[in-house]
């Protein structure tokens, strides 16, 4: 077993999440921000799958499927795809209007 323990996966996922969060918070390029969001979503996916693998199902009696974690992660991937599509559409629209995609300069929604 060694390294392949739940804590290892959680650690990797946390690292991935923080990397994504950092990217989201610090990058000025909208595409990079979107990429950060993807990283954070995938960190969540990693968690879901890891918990499905290592935590015994206590809710089987209640009718839950043994593959609930994997199912959720599939959903998240789907949502991520949709989100990326919408996000990229916004970015393209942004670019058409401002000829750049620098999120710092897109602050016209304030007062």
């Amino acid at each position: 077993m060694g390294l392949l323990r739940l804590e290892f996966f959680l650690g990797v996922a946390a690292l991935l999440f923080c990397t994504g969060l950092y990217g989201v918070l610090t990058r000025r390029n909208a595409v990079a921000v979107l990429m950060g969001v993807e990283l954070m979503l995938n960190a969540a996916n990693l968690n879901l799958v890891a918990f499905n693998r290592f935590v015994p199902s206590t809710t089987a009696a209640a009718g839950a499927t043994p593959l609930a974690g994997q199912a959720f992660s599939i959903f998240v991937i789907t949502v991520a795809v949709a989100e990326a599509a919408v996000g990229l559409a916004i970015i393209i629209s942004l670019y058409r209007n401002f000829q750049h995609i620098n999120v710092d300069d897109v602050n016209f929604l304030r007062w």
Partner: protein
Amino acid sequence: MVDYAFLIPLLPLLAYVVGIALGPQLRNWAHYVSIGAILAAFAMALGIFAETFSARAPVHDSVLWATYGSVPVRMGVYLDHLTAMMLVVVTTISLMVQIYSTEYMHGDRRYSRYFAYLSLFSAAMLGLVLADNLLLMLVCWELVGLSSYLLIGFWFEKPSAMRAAKKAFVVTHFADLGFAFGLYLLFAHTQSFDFATILSAHSVEAMPKALAGLVGLLLFCGACGKSAQFPLHVWLPDAMEGPTPVSALIHAATMVAAGVFMVGRMYPIFEHGHIAIVPFSLIGIDTTLGIVACVGAVTTLVAATIGIVMTDIKKVLAYSTVSQLGFMMLGLGVGGYTAGLFHLMTHAFFKALLFLGSGSVIHGTHTQEMWEMGGLRKKMPVTFATFMVGYLALSGFPLLAGWWSKDEILLDAWNDWRVFFWIAAFSAFLTAFYMTRLMALTFFGSPRNPEVHAHESGPAILGPLVFLAVPSVLVGFWGYNHGFAHYLHLPGEALPEFNPTVALIGSAAGLGGLGAGWLVFGRGVPSTALLARLFSPLYTLFRNKWYIDELWWNGVVVPLFLVADLCAWLDRWVVDLTVNAVAWLTQRISGLCRLFDTHVVDGAVNLSGWLTGGTGELLRRLQTGRIQNYLMVIVLGVLALLAFVR
């Protein structure tokens, strides 16, 4: 015919309404409406007179008018012999005056309105005569006053006419207060206005003598105003400012007759009343009738003396009317109910004749001053002849109308109190005297003013003159052998025996006046200048109309003005001052309020706005518009929450 008596006043009233409403359209045809109406009324009056001539019981017919509390007030006609007689007199004279006016007023700019007013005047008087209760009588009485006001002031462009109309209105209405109070008093006692009720022997007997006296006195006060009794006669001579036919109407039929008629109508109450009041009680008079006689005697004497010295032909006739009205009141007062009313009737005819005659003279000469006339006998023969008839009738020339009625009054005065008799006889003498003066100055002698080119009037003026001359001669014979007294018949009235002494003195007074007048003004012996010097204080007194106008002016009008001035002063310095002070205070208080409003209320509102704005200014700096800032805050918040939850 009797059942339709109510139409008699309504027809002229209708003519009035039509005349006023359609005046501009009718224009010079207006008189057809009025004359048609009065002609119909005249015919009906004659019919009723003939129909009721031998009937005794009065006709009484009424409809419900109003209800005061639980007392129903009815309105209707009360038609006895007095009414029937008055209807004929009033309609006859109204008809004559209206026919006469078609020529006299020809071309006047308010021709149609003039005839409408004449109709109203006749309607009011006919209503007054026919009224079956005191309230309706008062209503018509006031309408008579109103129409006289309108007609006296008909040429209101003249300030003097305007003043005369105002004076007539104010004086008669001042007197009408007495009528109104008498009416209230009588109603309070009898709970009825109906003549049939209040004048029944039973009702009159049940009334305390003092109350009857007071009621009679108050009613007589109203009659004094309308019938121009001393000292309220001042309006009548001034009323000469109206058109002359109107004067004829006022003096003969519609205005001054009302007062005498009212006293005649209410005679049982006057007879019953006892009242002692200064100054009459000082000479031992304590009955209402005594007071009536006293006032009448003073009036007839005062007016006759003024008549002697007037130089305006209409003024002489006006004072003559006042004097004759005093004569009638004197007759009524000394118990001559039929005598007074007989004189009212005869006088109506010959006074209307005289006034219309004087109108003809004025129409022909364009002046009213007798000193500018003279010698008109040849130039206006018809006017002269008819005027002569009226003059002799008024002066009491034997067998003419005035002689009969004056004789009856003198007879009653003789039997009552001799002082009244001598006053009346002297007044009759003066009447004949000043009327002779009028005749001599106007028709005899030679023209004094070459500027005056007299001409005879047209047929519409002469027709009525000739028509009225007939009753002026003949109507007196009705008095023969108490014929009129039997017709009018007041229950319980004792008819005096014929007294040759009285007849002799009466006729002598009239003829003596004629003779004296002829000597002085026809022959100039003694000359008028000598007489004026001889009786210089009296002459001055008469010329100034006994200073009665001045008495009223200084005794009543000026004090009233002073009171008015005082009221004005109080109004200005007390009421206005208070009002202004209140206004000033209000202004100051509202100034304070404004300060509070601008600085405290508005200040608070502005402060709250400023605070909100300032806070917003501060807080909006948090909104950077940068998503990453917000996300940063969210992350920090989540971290803080995590730290907190654990």
